[in-house]
């Protein structure tokens, strides 16, 4: 496909609709954010109250911003670490001769296709102090363990992380399951003949061969953590106080609930910059994988 062809203007037309939409919404949107972030603006009417970099210096001193950023990061690290571990463990388990592995394969993925809005509203009600989950614990005689799961600042964020783990471990499982299916079985037999234990087999043969899957899941896990909005918004709304607030939720709160569109635009720029890093990582990863 390297041959020189006469330059045809029509060759440009194929990418044009996608380019116009992406530039018109994403790039123009980011530029508009940068512009609006220089104003003290409610989002209604035209922005007139120019404040320069004031929104950004306010942001640096805003403890809720830092808390949201920290929560987003903690959420990403915790969900990625737990979901990868559980997903890999289950993917290895379904390769043993256990019963019910077919059921597990199907069932583990069911939560993945559910809407986060459905999962979040369901858990919010199940996890109230008087909700279904605590009733279950009591009926099992585990009275001491009932909690105001989402209402107590000590447990709220951890609970949100675990809800995400429940919903999305199936995704990691599926990626690992597909990758393990690709590993040459001869390797296992060879390692077995050399006398490797199951643990050694997993740590020295399986885990390293899944390097590509680990990387993909880490990058995608961080990206979805960055995008996560529904789960926090519909369980705690960022509370109690601001203990479970994340960047997306904080932007929503500033822009939509409090009419701080200028400040919200400055917050959005921070989110754009972080997202950009992960866009680059995902592109690099996917082009190196496919070569």
């Amino acid at each position: 496909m390297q041959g020189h062809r006469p330059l045809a203007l029509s060759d440009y037309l194929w990418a044009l609709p996608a380019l116009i939409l992406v530039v018109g919404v994403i790039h123009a949107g980011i530029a508009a954010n940068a512009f609006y972030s220089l104003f003290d603006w409610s989002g209604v009417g035209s922005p007139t109250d120019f404040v320069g970099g004031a929104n950004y210096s306010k942001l640096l001193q805003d403890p809720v911003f830092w808390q949201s950023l920290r929560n987003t990061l903690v959420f990403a690290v915790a969900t990625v670490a737990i979901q990868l571990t559980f997903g890999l463990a289950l993917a290895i388990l379904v390769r043993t001769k256990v019963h019910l592995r077919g059921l597990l394969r199907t069932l583990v993925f069911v939560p993945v296709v559910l809407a986060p809005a459905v999962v979040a509203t369901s858990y919010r009600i199940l996890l109230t102090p008087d909700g279904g989950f605590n009733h279950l614990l009591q009926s099992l005689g585990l009275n001491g363990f009932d909690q105001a799961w989402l209402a107590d600042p000590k447990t709220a964020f951890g609970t949100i992380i675990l809800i995400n783990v429940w919903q999305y471990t199936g995704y990691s499982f599926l990626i690992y399951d597909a990758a393990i299916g690709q590993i040459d079985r001869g390797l296992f037999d060879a390692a077995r003949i050399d006398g490797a234990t199951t643990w050694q087999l997993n740590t020295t043969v399986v885990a390293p061969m899944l390097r590509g899957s680990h990387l993909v899941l880490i990058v995608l896990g961080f990206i979805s953590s960055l995008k996560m909005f529904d789960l926090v918004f519909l369980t705690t709304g960022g509370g109690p106080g601001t203990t479970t607030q994340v960047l997306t939720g904080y932007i929503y709160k500033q822009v939509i609930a409090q009419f701080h569109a200028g400040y919200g635009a400055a917050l959005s720029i921070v989110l754009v910059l972080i997202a950009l890093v992960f866009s680059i990582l995902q592109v690099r990863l996917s082009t190196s994988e496919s070569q």
Partner: protein
Amino acid sequence: MFQFQRLPGRILSQLLVLVALVVLVVPLVLIVKESLAGEGISNYGIVLSSTPFLRFFANSLIVSVSTVVLVMFLGLSASYGFAVLRPRGSPVGAVVILTGLALPAIALVVPLYYVVQAIGLLDTYWSVIIPLTVISIPFGVLVSSNYIRGLPAELYEAGRLDGANSWQFFWQILVPICRPILSVVAIFTFLAAWNEYLLPLLFIQSTDLQVLTQVPTYFQSERAVDTPKIFAANILISVPVVVIFIVLQKTFRTGISAGAVK
């Protein structure tokens, strides 16, 4: 693969599988149980008859199908330009599109809200379809162009020799060959669109246009928190995607692992 476990290992594996199943199933069972509280099975009937549930369902379908069709076409046609025709500047064009890959829609909420209001799109399907499509295009372009680059080059030469112009080549040769990757794009985009919560929350106000993900909150506002109805609604919302998943399980599995790695 690990078939030659010894007895203690097998018992341990079985035990872990059972624990995993219990953890997965218990919340689902609790959701079903709550949906049957109070008026029992008629909770479902009430949700279907006393709310515009079917209207919401149709709206979700309209928004999701439009978005999927747009993203499949726009993603593949851009990839055709970038990976096959490659006019000067193609790499720049690709970079411009791919920068949006990880961008959360909420990062654009300020300009979107302003523009949607200004051009009168508030409370239309387009106010949800356009941002959803745009946010999904980078993924469509990434996986489609990677897929096209992996195809044998002779294919294009053959098309050229046959004298097909680019329009014919695209529809008659590229689209059929790209069916596997188009189904990947379709699965990801459909799930994202069907499950989208934020954009309809922001831009759709009239009940006639509302989508399914807004139903649980509909029950909280309309009739002071009617818990069993919320759960019944949540199950009704979820049944279509779960059924589609179970029926098309194989396509889903290969599609999702291909979409992640490609």
